[in-house]
């Protein structure tokens, strides 16, 4: 005979509403279906051995020296969780399951689709693949072009006031924000995805790629004076975020995937500010270095700086942190749409390579960074690398 407390427990626990967002549901479903589509066990285990050997050979011939360093050692053997198609290993692109992947390094661009490469090291000043990989936006000098990814046909062309230095699609691919250099200053523009209705947002901004909010209604950017601002694309108003956390001249910023949380980083510090709610700021320090930011979940993000990869978990209150150290400077970082994998540009000795890796989990044990795939073999390039994974 259940007691009164047990009856109340049954009622309370069975009445708990399923209050997940549709986005969380969709991401979980996509991840589950992708996992279910994996290879049959017998065949997979055979290919795992073959491909692991192939990857190890590719990495060795590409000059990748993987050595254990720091508290979270870099794996000294490539570890594959699932075998990629062998053909992709020859092209190096794109990562398994990606609709499109792009690299911009040293003024050269690579864009790969599942079955072909759209660009292979072509000179470009900016590159951006639209969400869903329908269009690729590419800039060369003062020309901005939208190319249909499926056919390679040029859909739209625009001539800008100056060379385009960065371009970003909004999450709903209806708007584009781009930076262009005019008279020695960077300008921020906002326009429709059809490369029309161009609107000059700010004449003096820093050379930092802007970031769109999840709802595509606002874009964050760094002003020339180092202040971060959020421009509302619907009413044209711009709000300057008061400084905090001791940041000076941020060099990276990124909105969270489903909220107004904005991560801002300079060479030594990270700040996470709630631009639409009243949550207090979160501040953290990181190793000196040009930072890259990649959100993987609504409350989790990676920040790469120097040779350290930080995983942050936003708590209520507080911030959880885990680190992974790699034997090269991380000069570019992005995450797969499901947040399970990362792409990293690793630079050492004046050359850069791009790899796909499993996103390091929070773990009681020191977990190595598992390299899954070499995406771009080592090539001369020393500056920041822009990566995009759709």
């Amino acid at each position, binding site marked *: 005979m259940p*007691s009164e*407390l*047990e009856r*109340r*427990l*049954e*009622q*309370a*626990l*069975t*009445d*708990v*509403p*399923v*209050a*997940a*967002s549709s986005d*969380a*549901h969709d*991401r*979980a*479903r996509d*991840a*589950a*279906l*992708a*996992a*279910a*589509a*994996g290879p*049959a*066990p017998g065949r997979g285990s055979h290919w795992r051995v073959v491909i692991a050997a192939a990857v190890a050979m590719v990495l060795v011939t590409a000059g990748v020296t993987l050595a254990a360093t720091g508290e979270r050692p870099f794996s000294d053997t490539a570890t594959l969780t699932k075998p990629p198609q062998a053909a992709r290993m020859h092209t190096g692109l794109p990562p398994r399951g990606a609709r499109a992947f792009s690299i911009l390094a040293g003024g050269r661009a690579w864009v790969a689709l599942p079955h072909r490469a759209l660009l292979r090291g072509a000179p470009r000043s900016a590159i951006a693949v639209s969400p869903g990989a329908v269009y690729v936006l590419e800039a060369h000098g003062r020309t901005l072009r939208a190319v249909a990814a499926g056919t390679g046909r040029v859909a739209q062309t625009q001539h800008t006031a100056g060379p385009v230095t960065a371009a970003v699609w909004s999450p709903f691919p209806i708007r584009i924000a781009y930076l262009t250099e005019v008279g020695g200053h960077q300008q921020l523009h906002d326009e429709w995805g059809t490369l029309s209705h161009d609107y000059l947002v700010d004449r003096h901004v820093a050379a930092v790629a802007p970031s769109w909010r999840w709802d595509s209604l606002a874009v964050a950017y760094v002003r020339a004076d180092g202040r971060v601002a959020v421009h509302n694309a619907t009413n044209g108003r711009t709000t300057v975020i008061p400084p905090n956390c001791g940041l000076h001249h941020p060099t990276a910023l990124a909105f969270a995937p489903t909220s107004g949380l904005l991560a801002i980083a300079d060479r030594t510090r990270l700040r996470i500010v709630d631009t639409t709610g009243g949550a207090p700021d979160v501040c953290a320090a990181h190793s000196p270095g040009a930072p890259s930011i990649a959100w993987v*979940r*609504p*409350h*989790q993000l990676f920040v790469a700086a120097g040779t350290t990869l930080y995983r942050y*978990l936003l*708590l*209520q*209150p*507080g*911030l*959880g*942190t*885990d680190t992974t150290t790699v034997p090269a400077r991380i000069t570019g970082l992005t995450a797969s749409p*499901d947040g*399970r994998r990362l792409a990293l540009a690793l630079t050492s000795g004046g050359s850069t390579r791009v790899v796909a890796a499993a996103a390091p989990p*929070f*773990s*009681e044990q020191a977990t190595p960074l598992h390299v899954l795939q070499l995406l771009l073999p080592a090539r001369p390039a020393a500056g920041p690398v822009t990566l995009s994974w759709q």
Partner: protein
Amino acid sequence: MVEPSDGELVGRAHRGSRDAAATLFERHWGGAWRLARTVSGRRDMADDIVQDAFERAFAALGRFDQSRPFAPWLHRIVINRALDLLRSERRLVGLDVAAHPSAEWRDVSADDRALLEAVATLTPQRRVVIVLRYGLGYSPAEIARMLELPTGTVNSRLARALEDLRERERERDAERT
């Protein structure tokens, strides 16, 4: 039209049917999310737990014994992921997240909220058995099989958890008076 059983869906999904995998996902996602939320005490964490659990479960469909029920197998993965994440959080920040549960239950009735807040203060091991017993209706023997524990241990944890909850209620009543 007769709905396919979980076992049939697992078999078809493992042979490559995306529709079967999607049906299986939709059939179990809500229950798994509710379990993750009540065990972790947090909505945002539930999103991560359930995504991880489904990904692991669907990647391992080939190892699933189709003669056994699917839900307990999935629920065990959810619980393991939830406990892993809770352990990681305590290690990272030395913070008991269950100490700040009030904001997490704003979307339930006031009567239920007090009880759910009390459940969130239980140790994770006791919270798990309470949620499995009273939220999902598993018997102590089924919980024991799922968690690979002696039935006696499950009964003991249930009894202690109920006593903890009664103690919380007595404390709350004393505060009111």
